[in-house]
C-alpha cells in the first residue's frame, strides 16, 4: 500500500523523535540577532540583514537573540544552531543527577506506578546526550547510567503490568511516548485478540437479549 506495512499502525522511533523535536528548549545563544535601533536607521551601509521567518513556529525569539542571554526555541532549531556552535542548550531541570536520583528513588518506592517524568524524557535524554554532551553540568556518563537505570526499572514494571492485560482497557499513567510506542504492537494486538475471543463467546446472549426487549 501507499504506506509501508511497518508504519501502518504505529510510529517509527524516528517519527517519535520528530514529534519531540517540536518541543521548546532553553538555549544560550552565542550570536546576536537583535538589531539596535541605531543600526536600523543606518541605511547608508546598505546591508540588509536576513531575518528568520517561520511558518510552523514563532520567530520573535529567533530575531531577538542576544549572546549569552537565555531564550526559548524549538528543539530542532536549537540542534541546528548547536551543530554550528552558535548556541549551547540548557538541559531541562529533570535531567540532573540530583533530580534523576530522586526519580529513581520514587520508582523503587512505588512499585505499582510510574513516576511523573515528562512524556518525552527518553527521547530528550538520548538526543541531548548525542548532540549536546558538552552542555551538561553533571558528568554525562553518570547521567547516561542514571537514565539507563530508570529505563530498566520501568521496563520491569511494564513486564509486571502485562500480566494484567484484558479485553477492555489498561491504564498507563506517566508512561512515555517511546515506551508506549515500543509496546504498542504487542499490547494492541494481544488485547484485540482477547476482545475477539471474549466477544465471540458473549455476542449471542447480547443479541438475544436485545431481540427480546424489542418484542
Amino acid at each position, binding site marked *: 500500500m501507499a504506506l509501508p506495512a*511497518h508504519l501502518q499502525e*504505529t510510529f*517509527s*522511533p*524516528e517519527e517519535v*523523535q520528530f514529534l519531540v523535536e517540536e518541543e521548546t528548549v532553553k538555549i544560550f545563544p552565542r550570536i546576536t540577532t537583535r538589531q539596535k535601533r541605531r543600526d536600523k536607521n543606518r541605511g547608508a551601509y546598505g546591508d540588509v540583514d536576513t531575518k528568520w521567518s517561520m511558518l510552523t513556529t514563532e520567530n520573535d525569539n529567533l530575531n531577538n537573540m542576544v549572546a549569552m542571554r537565555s531564550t526559548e526555541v524549538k528543539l530542532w532549531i536549537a540542534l541546528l544552531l548547536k551543530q554550528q556552535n552558535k548556541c549551547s542548550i540548557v538541559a531541562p531541570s529533570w535531567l540532573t543527577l540530583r533530580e534523576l536520583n530522586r526519580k529513581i528513588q520514587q520508582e523503587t518506592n512505588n512499585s505499582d506506578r510510574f513516576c511523573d517524568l515528562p512524556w518525552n524524557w*527518553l527521547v530528550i535524554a*538520548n538526543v541531548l546526550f548525542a548532540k549536546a554532551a558538552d552542555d551538561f553540568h553533571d558528568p554525562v556518563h553518570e547521567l547516561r547510567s542514571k537514565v539507563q537505570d530508570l529505563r530498566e526499572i520501568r521496563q520491569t514494571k511494564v*513486564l509486571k503490568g*502485562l*500480566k494484567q*492485560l484484558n*479485553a477492555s482497557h489498561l491504564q498507563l499513567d506517566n508512561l512515555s511516548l*517511546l515506551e508506549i*510506542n*515500543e*509496546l*504498542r*504492537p*504487542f499490547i494492541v*494486538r*494481544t488485547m484485540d*485478540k*482477547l476482545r*475477539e*475471543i*471474549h466477544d*465471540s*463467546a*458473549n*455476542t*449471542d*446472549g447480547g*443479541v*438475544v437479549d436485545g*431481540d427480546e426487549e424489542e418484542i
Partner: protein
Amino acid sequence: MGYYDIDDILVDSTEVPCKFNYEIPGLGYLENNPGKPIRKNTKLSLPLWLARVLAIVGADSQEQEDMDPNAEEEDGGDAFVELLTPDMFSNKVINAIKTDPKSLDLHAINPYFLDMALKWIALYSDKDLGEIVYELLLERAQQINNYASSVSIDTEYGNKYRSALLDALRLQQNSANEDRSGPLASINGTSSLTTRSANNSGIGSSVGTSQATNLAASTRFLLKLDEFERQLYKDTHDSYRDTKKWVSK
C-alpha cells in the same frame, strides 16, 4: 478477519468432522464417489467454509431463512449436517491447555488454533471454551513478549539468527508434509519434531555459546507458536528491535 485476509481463508479450509442428517442425491462427490447419493448418518470431514453453512441451513428452512440461525441450530435435526467435536478441541487438548499453556505445541495441534477456536466459539457461543482460550492466549502472550524483547542488534548475529530460523521453519514444514497422520502425536511427551529441527539447523556450531543457547531456545519456542502468535511475535520483535536500534545509535 476480513474477506481478503489470506490467513482467514486458510483457516476456513481446515476440515472438521460432520454427520449428515439427510439422504441427499448427487452429493456423493463429497465422499469421493460422484454420482451416488450421500446417505443419512454418513460421517465426513468438510472444510469449515462449507460445514459452517450446512450446519445452519436445513431442508425445510426456506420459509424461515431470515430467522435467527441459532434457533434452527438448537433444533438440531433440521440442519443438513451436524458438526462433531474436532480433535483439536477434544478433552485431551483442553486438559493439556489447562495444565500448561506455555509449553504446549499449538502449531502441531493446528497451525491456526486460535483463529479456529475463535470461529468455533462464535458458532456455539461456547463460554467455557472461550474462557480457556482467553487464558491460553494471555499466558502465552507473556512468553511471546519475553522472547521478543530479548533483542540483539549485532547484525552478523541477526543474520545467522534469521537463517537458522528459516531453516528450522522449512524443516518443520517438510516433516509436516511427510506425516499428516498424527497431528496430535506431539502432545504426548516430548515433541520430537521441534528438538530435531532445532538440532539439525546447525545452531551452535558457528555462534557463541550463550547466543547459541538463546537461539536454540527461541527457535524451539517459535516452532510451537500458531500462525497468529508468530505474527504477533514478529511485530513485537521488530518494534523492540527498532527502538533499541534508535536508542543505541
